C-alpha cells in the first residue's frame, strides 16, 4: 500500500473516531482542520510548482496554491468575525504530519516519478478531505456561517479531485 493511501485512511479514521468518541469536532477544531487541510495542499503545490515535470501538472499545482489560499483567506476572515480561535486537535495534527511526510517523500523524487507521486497523492488527499467534509465536518459544524463556508468550499474539492483524476489518467497513458 502506498504511503499516501495509508495517510489518508489514517486521517479519515481519526475524523471518524473523533466523531464517535466526542459527538464530532467542535467549531474551533473544525476551523483548525479546514485551515490545516488547505495549508497542507498549498505546501505540496508550492513544491510541485518548482519540481513538476509536465506543464499540466505544474499548472494544476499553481491552481492548488491559488484556490486553497483563497479558501483559507475566507476561512481566516470568518473565524475572526466569529471570534473562533482554531484549536489544534488529533485530526489537524495528523493532517500536518501527513503533509510533512508527503513533502519529504516528494522531495526525493524528480521527473515523471515526481508527477505521478504528486498527482496520486492529490487524488487520495482530495477524496479523503471530501469524505471528511461530508461525513464529519459539515454534520458537526455548529455555527451556521461555518457550516455555510464548508458547503461553499465543497465544490472546489470536487473540481480539484476530477482535475487530478484526469491528470492521473493522462500520466498513466503516457507511461508516467
Amino acid at each position: 500500500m502506498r504511503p499516501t493511501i495509508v495517510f489518508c485512511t489514517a486521517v479519515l479514521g481519526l475524523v471518524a473516531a473523533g466523531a464517535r468518541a466526542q459527538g464530532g469536532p467542535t467549531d474551533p477544531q473544525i476551523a483548525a482542520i479546514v485551515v490545516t487541510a488547505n495549508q497542507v495542499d498549498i505546501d505540496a503545490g508550492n513544491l510541485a510548482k518548482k519540481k513538476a515535470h509536465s506543464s499540466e501538472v505544474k499548472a494544476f499545482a499553481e491552481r492548488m496554491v491559488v484556490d486553497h489560499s483563497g479558501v483559507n483567506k475566507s476561512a481566516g476572515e470568518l473565524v475572526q468575525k466569529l471570534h473562533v480561535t482554531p484549536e489544534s486537535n488529533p485530526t489537524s495534527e495528523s493532517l500536518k504530519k501527513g503533509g510533512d511526510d508527503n513533502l519529504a517523500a516528494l522531495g526525493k523524487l524528480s521527473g515523471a516519478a515526481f508527477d505521478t507521486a504528486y498527482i496520486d497523492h492529490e487524488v487520495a488527499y482530495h477524496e479523503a478531505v471530501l469524505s471528511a467534509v461530508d461525513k464529519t465536518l459539515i454534520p458537526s459544524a455548529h455555527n451556521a456561517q461555518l457550516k455555510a463556508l464548508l458547503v461553499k468550499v465543497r465544490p472546489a474539492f470536487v473540481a480539484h479531485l476530477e482535475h487530478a483524476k484526469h491528470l492521473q489518467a493522462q500520466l498513466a497513458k503516457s507511461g508516467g
Partner: protein
Amino acid sequence: MAALLPLMVSPGTTAAKLPAAAVRTHTITIENVQYTPAHLTVRRGDRIVWVNKDLFPHTVTATDKAFDSGSIDVSKTWTFLAKKRGTFGYSCTFHPTMKGTIEVK
C-alpha cells in the same frame, strides 16, 4: 457596434416604429465552481456580465478561443458584448470541469 445601429436606419424610416434596440444586460454568476445559468440565450448586441462570487479566480474562455476573459479575480466581473450569432461553448482554463454555453440569436 450597437451604438452604430441607429445610423444604419435608412432615411425616411420612422424610428418610432422600430422595435426598441436597447442593449439588454444578462448576468451569469460564477460560484461553487460553476456558471449559473450554465446555458444562456441572448440577442445579438446584448451584453453578458460574468460575476465571480467564488473564493478564487476563474476564466470564461470560448472553446474556439473566440473570446477569453483571462483571470477574473474574486468579486470582479467580466463583460462580453455578443456581436456574432451562434452557439458558443466556453469553460474555465483553471478548472476544466466548469462548462457553459451562450446562444446568440
